[in-house]
């Protein structure tokens, strides 16, 4: 029987060779805890990410848009469910179930993605979120398709495929506005101005020295840095934004041919610290909405778990 240190070393060797880990494999607690934390945040981000856009479902301006936005937001909730299922399996030996994983959102122990703390005050914001926020999400999630944790990587394949449709849905809204009346065009430009900094903040600071990030790199869960992902996003989307005739609100933004990278005005990174404490622009509002609906639904969940219901 190998001792714990040997098992740990063998595990590390496996993941560093590129082998994949399954839910039933032995894994060090450090790995399990880091995975649960990451998956929990991803799942809760999908759950909270439904909220900015769902504000526009009842106000979507045509029957077709109403249908496509509903389907889009529904996908995000569905992603939350898929990822929570993976997280539940991992968290079971730690004594946590879905109820605990979700409830930690309300105590602040679990975070949700910084981009979903931002306001979405116009219809154009719904378009920008679908196009560019989902665009940024695909850039970061596609980089995790080779993740060492196989059940997550498998779920991500479906998530990324659906996000691909979301980008088309969002781009279509933005295209219609860009080609529309002067007021529609202005609404789109205003929304881009509002979201640009959030899109840069999305990937996190260039130098991430957090211990939790180091663990993710060590176990080959992550392989790309924040800045590599941000550069990839800029390469893909800046030309497309310009193609719509929109102005990106950063006069410093340019591609440095020699360095082979985008130069941009750094966003105010301190905003991420406030968001991490749930003190972003709409952090408390969105958490409040989620908490209220969670409490309102408690009697329903209890009824589903009651013994009499099992017999039906």
């Amino acid at each position, binding site marked *: 029987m190998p001792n714990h240190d040997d098992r740990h070393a063998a595990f590390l060797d496996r993941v560093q060779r590129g082998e994949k880990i399954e839910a039933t494999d032995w894994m060090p607690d450090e790995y399990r805890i880091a995975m649960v934390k990451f998956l929990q945040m991803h799942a809760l981000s999908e759950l909270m990410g439904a909220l900015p856009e769902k504000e526009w479902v*009842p106000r979507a301006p045509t029957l077709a848009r109403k249908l496509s936005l509903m389907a889009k937001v529904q996908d995000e909730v569905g992603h939350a469910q898929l990822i929570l299922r993976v997280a539940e399996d991992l968290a079971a030996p730690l004594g946590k179930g879905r109820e605990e994983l979700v409830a930690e959102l309300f105590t602040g122990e679990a975070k949700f993605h910084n981009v979903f703390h931002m306001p979405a005050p116009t219809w154009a914001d719904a378009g920008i979120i679908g196009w560019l926020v989902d665009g940024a999400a695909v850039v970061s999630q596609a980089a995790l398709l080779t993740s060492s944790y196989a059940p997550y990587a498998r779920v991500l394949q479906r998530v990324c495929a659906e996000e691909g449709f979301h980008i088309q849905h969002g781009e279509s809204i933005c295209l219609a506005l860009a080609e*529309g*009346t002067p007021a529609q065009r202005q609404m789109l430009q205003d929304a881009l101005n509002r979201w640009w900094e959030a899109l840069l903040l999305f990937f996190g600071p260039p130098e991430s020295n957090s211990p939790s990030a180091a663990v993710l790199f060590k176990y080959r869960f992550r392989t790309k840095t924040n800045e590599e992902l941000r550069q990839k996003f800029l390469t893909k989307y800046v030309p497309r934004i310009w193609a719509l005739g929109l102005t990106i609100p950063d006069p410093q933004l340019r591609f440095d041919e020699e360095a082979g990278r985008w130069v941009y005005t750094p966003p105010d990174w301190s905003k991420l610290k406030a968001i991490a404490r749930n003190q972003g622009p709409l952090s408390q509002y969105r958490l409040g*909405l989620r908490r209220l609906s969670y409490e309102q639904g408690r009697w329903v969940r209890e009824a589903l778990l009651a013994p009499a219901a099992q017999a039906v």
Partner: protein
Amino acid sequence: MDTRGVIALLYQLADDELVVGHRDSEWLGLAPHIEEDVAFSSIAQDEVGHAALYYRLLEELGEGRADDLAFLRPAGQRRNAVLLERPNGPGTYLAEPRFDWGYTIVRRLAYDLFDAIRLEVLTASAHAPLARAAAKILREERYHLLHHTTWFRRLATGTAESRRRLEAGVAAVWPDLGGLFSLGEVAPGPHFPASPEELVDRWTAELEPLFAEVGFAWPGRPAPAAAPGADGRLGQHTPELDGLLETMGEVYRTAPGAAW
């Protein structure tokens, strides 16, 4: 062919589906658990999709653009039953939504059953495009009915609280039921071969045994007509419909002729 009768009927169908689909869509992100959020959104999408189909049939009959019909008509021109415009509960989808799942399930069950019966009648309609649409839609509505019947049984047999909340939902839904069965300006005939009395008979025959099964007192056979002055099928609505239409058309009204 009585085109005016068909048009009047289509407005009832389209407005019913749009308004109930809109109310359902307000639950998005707020449903009692994650799996139900996904399922209930599918149902909302089905309803809005059916509304879009009916509005397109109206467009083909020269009534105007489908989106204009859906987003611009004032409450007085709407032909949905009042039951479907009632809010999901206190608050709004944006602020303090204390939505009532018990009410929602009873309303959905009552409406799904009514709609399934109405669609069965319509499959025999002399208006062929409507008969074809009804046959297609009926296939989806069967799943809605199954879903909400399952919920009804579970909540009725779950906990004392869920049973109490479901009974409160029954009490709140019942006074509005007559308006569901009203045919408004539509006279039964070849395009709609059934009377409100027959619809009530078939609806009662389906639902009364379910109430007996879960031990709920039967609240009584619904009237085949709305209370005076409260017939949505004649354009008589509550202020809640004004609020709903205000929200629904908020963006579209800023540039109705534009592409969105």
